């Protein structure tokens, strides 16, 4: 019954969007307009040439690498109305044809460069781009993506892989990937985009609103909920784990039992790293017995030992 209610809510939401979209079909194709003159004053009064052969007459080398890209194929199938292929990104070039200099280059300011891409790509994962940490840190689309040639199998990245692309600005993370315990990123089994939406605006640019929601995407066995909850676990996996890499086992932030002892001080065997018990400093420490530290479904699971 509960599932059916959720299905109805989801369907209703999708139907509303579908209705809005299809009802707008009859109107002219809306595309986010770009004020070219604000990006470079030289564009004032310029018009679109709308002929790729004109561009190719001087820029054949650049267009050779461009030809195999997804943009080239998309524009071949659906040429942008009015501007054509090249000028949809490079702006109206009538003045450049008259006087072929670099005067109409788009400035390096990230907002200027991103505005061009956002005229078509502000949807999906990029809904919140302008509010995200990358945009507000002056990162532009071209910081990570390259349009004129295919450097990566996916996503038009400047480097061969997403990990290399991210590491070019986040080198401190690369060092963590080589630690004893790590996600299989350096082995190529996953990449930064597995946990991060680099175009979004969530905290830490995670794919989901919270750390836990992000982790549950792959670790659904920890999602629960459980009869017995471990409160700091339910709030944030980062209370005990550091996801980029750790010199402790299973991405822990500290050596067990010291991690557990930072919060638990009941007395007896709980209070010492060694107390003549299987909580001793060998094996998995406290987890030798307290095996269900992520939550328990056993009637006697209050101490997370079942």
């Amino acid at each position, binding site marked *: 019954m509960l599932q059916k209610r959720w299905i109805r809510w989801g369907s209703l939401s999708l139907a509303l969007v579908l209705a809005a979209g299809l009802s707008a079909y009859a109107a002219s194709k809306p595309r986010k307009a770009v004020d070219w003159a604000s990006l470079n004053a030289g564009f004032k009064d310029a018009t679109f040439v709308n002929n790729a052969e004109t561009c190719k007459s001087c820029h054949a080398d650049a267009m050779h690498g461009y030809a195999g890209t997804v943009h080239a194929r998309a524009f071949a199938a659906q040429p942008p109305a009015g501007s054509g292929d090249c000028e949809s990104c490079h702006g109206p070039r009538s003045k450049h044809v008259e006087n072929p200099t670099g005067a109409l280059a788009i400035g390096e300011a990230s907002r200027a460069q991103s505005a061009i891409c956002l005229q078509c790509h*502000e949807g999906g994962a990029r809904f919140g781009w302008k509010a995200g940490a990358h945009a507000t840190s002056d990162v532009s689309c071209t910081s990570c993506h390259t349009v004129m040639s295919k450097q990566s199998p996916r996503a038009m990245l400047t480097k061969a892989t997403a990990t290399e692309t991210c590491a070019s600005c986040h080198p401190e993370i690369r060092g963590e990937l080589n630690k004893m315990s790590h996600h299989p990123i350096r082995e190529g089994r996953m990449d930064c985009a597995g946990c991060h939406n680099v175009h979004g605006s969530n905290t830490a640019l995670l794919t989901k609103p919270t750390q836990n929601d992000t982790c549950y995407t792959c670790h659904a066995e920890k999602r629960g909920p459980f009869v017995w909850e471990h409160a700091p676990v339910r709030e944030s996996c980062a209370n005990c784990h550091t996801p980029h890499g750790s010199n402790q086992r299973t991405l822990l932030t500290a050596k*067990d039992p010291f991690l557990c002892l930072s919060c638990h001080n009941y007395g007896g065997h709980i209070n010492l790293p060694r*107390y003549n018990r299987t909580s001793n400093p060998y094996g998995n420490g406290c987890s030798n017995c307290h095996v269900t530290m992520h939550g328990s479904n056993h009637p006697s699971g209050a101490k997370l030992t079942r």
Partner: protein
Amino acid sequence: MKRTLIPLVVALVAAAALAEAQTKPATSDAAPPAPSTVISGSVTAGVLQVSNDTNSAKFTEYRDLRDKFYLPMVTFGALDASGGWGLEFSAANAAQNDQTILMRTGKPGVWTVQADWSGIPHNFSNKAVTPYINRGNGLFTVPATIPITFKKLATSAPDTANVLASDNLIAAYQTTYLAPVALSTQTNAGRFGFTWDGLDALSLGVRYDLRDTSGSKSGFGPIGDRPPRTLNVQLAEPVDYRTGDFTLSAEHQGRGYQLGAEFLFSSFANGTDTLKWQNMYTSAAAGADYDVWDRLVSVYGQRPLPPDNQYQNVTINGGVDMKGDSRLFGTVSIGQLDQNATLLPYAYGGSALLNQTLPRSTASASMTTTHAAVDYVFNPVRKLSVRGYFRQYSLGNDTPSSNWQYATQDTYNTNGSVSYVNKRTSLPIAWARQNFGAEATLRMAKRNTLTLVFEHEGRDFDHREANTDENIFRATWRYKPSSKMSTEVRYLYGGRTGSAYNNTVTHEGYWYTAADSPDNNNPAVTFDNHPDTRRYDVIDRGRQQVDFRLNLVPAESFSVSAYVRYRADDFDSGVGPSQPLAGTGLAEQNAVSPGNQLGLLEDGRMRYGVDLFFQPVPKVTVTAFLNFDKGTSAMKSLEYNENNKQNPSTIATAELGPWTRASSQWTSDTTDTTFGGGFGASFQVSEKGAALIADYTFSLADIDIAYGGFGTTNWDGTAFPTNHQFYFATPPTVSEDLHMFNLRFEIPVKMLFVVLGYGLESYSLNDWQQGSSAPWVEAVGADTLLRDTSRSFQWGNRLFNLGTYLSPSYTAHMGFVGLRCRF
């Protein structure tokens, strides 16, 4: 669910097809140009030879490396240049455990079908051994039980001779019954999606993600109610997980606004519900499920494995562009988590003494999540950008709170009753977080940018010691005078305040009767955790972070960048002496705690590094990097006897003494350093494409824990002998060194490339926790039985495990010979 979803998906696809049909351009009378389809691809095949001197699973932790013939890479592409349709296919390590298969086809900007499939092996150990036999469905038995002679769990009955004799019997048992056991999992993850973007105003998507994990991982099977009486064994816990996520999405783009919706249904299923293992130390009379020691001891232990669960979520996003290049963006998300597994009984078997009635037969666990966020970005004046934002996230818990017995299936009080302190109440843990703030970025002269941020975060918890409020300030200065240089300095300060710390909130997790009050340990009358303890996630915290980055690109062929990060967290919460028993009427209600904060006190991290790129000539590229990472943390705790909370003075001179004694405190300071680096070079040897590529990476890590206070010495300063049950001292440095070297040579031969590769890896590990050579632990017979060096009679200081150093050091060589063909 299928009845609703299938028509919905069909409707979506039909809508897409209908719109696609309406977008087809009108045909003309002229003959269409002949379509041109370009086919391209490559195939690389070869033979891999591997040598791993210790067969350590660490070498193949996430990789399928073994002697084999295989296809490292296959690519295929078909492109209809005139129509825009394309097909891309790639398969790395096809048909291997670590394969990655990517397929995408469609018309860019119109529709896309994407299918990915990847394998993720996770090898934990190649040397684990166990006497247990996996009978399937979570059941583990032993071929024979151990005829131990010391059948006592009582804590007051030492019998050293029999205890040691039993240990020797266990040691002898190992030589007969230990057998290798696989300790690894294989995850296969697939993603199948269809996206339709045929209209500028509308795009639709449907996707299914499948994640299947199977194998075995390290787990434990404890039998017993309290640590002295714990019969503990490490097991190869079965893993049989399947997660399926179904996502529907739709997005509408209007003039200056976007609206999107997404529905997610996620289902997790575990093929094995219960772990059940035979107690190797017991033998039962015919028809009985327990052995008779001084207490009744169950012949099996059992515990539930991760239960099936479901998660559903609806998210609506919207963004609108407003005047002055401003934008308003918002998102609302509602989710629900459910789990309703049938609960195991308190006790295994039919013991009437333990089969007490459960408050409910199923978990009935349910949580709801709500998330809302609003961002507004605008430019009040030229060169000034401002962003205001608000976020709210709450996790509500609808799981019923019930009163339970801590009556395990095995050992309990000698009269069959359960201890009152183990009358436990399950609590519906819930929390909420609000963030709001403002950010201003000023673009100044000469490419200087200054960003100032203020943010407030408030967190409210149910059943936690405190709520928190934090004010965060950030300042960033960026300077990019030219394309050849950029620098950035960032400073963050966060001041978090916890509300009044309620140390007694844990009482909510117990249910008591009037008759329970006299017990000396009664947490309801006294306290749960020591009154000076502060749990670091809900207390005051002062944090500071400084970042510095410098990028220099003096030429296209040369660049260097450097960074420094320093972060320090201080959890000082102004703890002072307290009287936790005040007002209770107890004889020692005026007893005072030492007043030194216990728990995590400080945490810091320093990172710095440098990256280099150099291309002296077009045919030669050199890269190098170095990074240093150092983490430090400090904590404090205090050892005391939990059975004397009401009368601490009566044990004033005992080793396991009172909670009021400052000299029972201990401290640990951890330093965790990692020094890493790498070097890479590629040389194009000839114009025909012959190339030599080499790279070397290293990572050297050390962990030092400086331990002092109680444990190294007694409370009176007397040194503990190393085999004392409380002895602990600064352990040896944990070190982990990894070196990886790879060399590849590609030689063109007519239409092919011959690929020759060599790899060398060296990994060394020394970790006192993984071994049995520390002063506090010893192996008995084999390293599968670890015992505290005190050799106390209590079963709780023995651990029957899968072995030590399950993924040890190794030196490995890899050689590859192959051919690559491009077409």
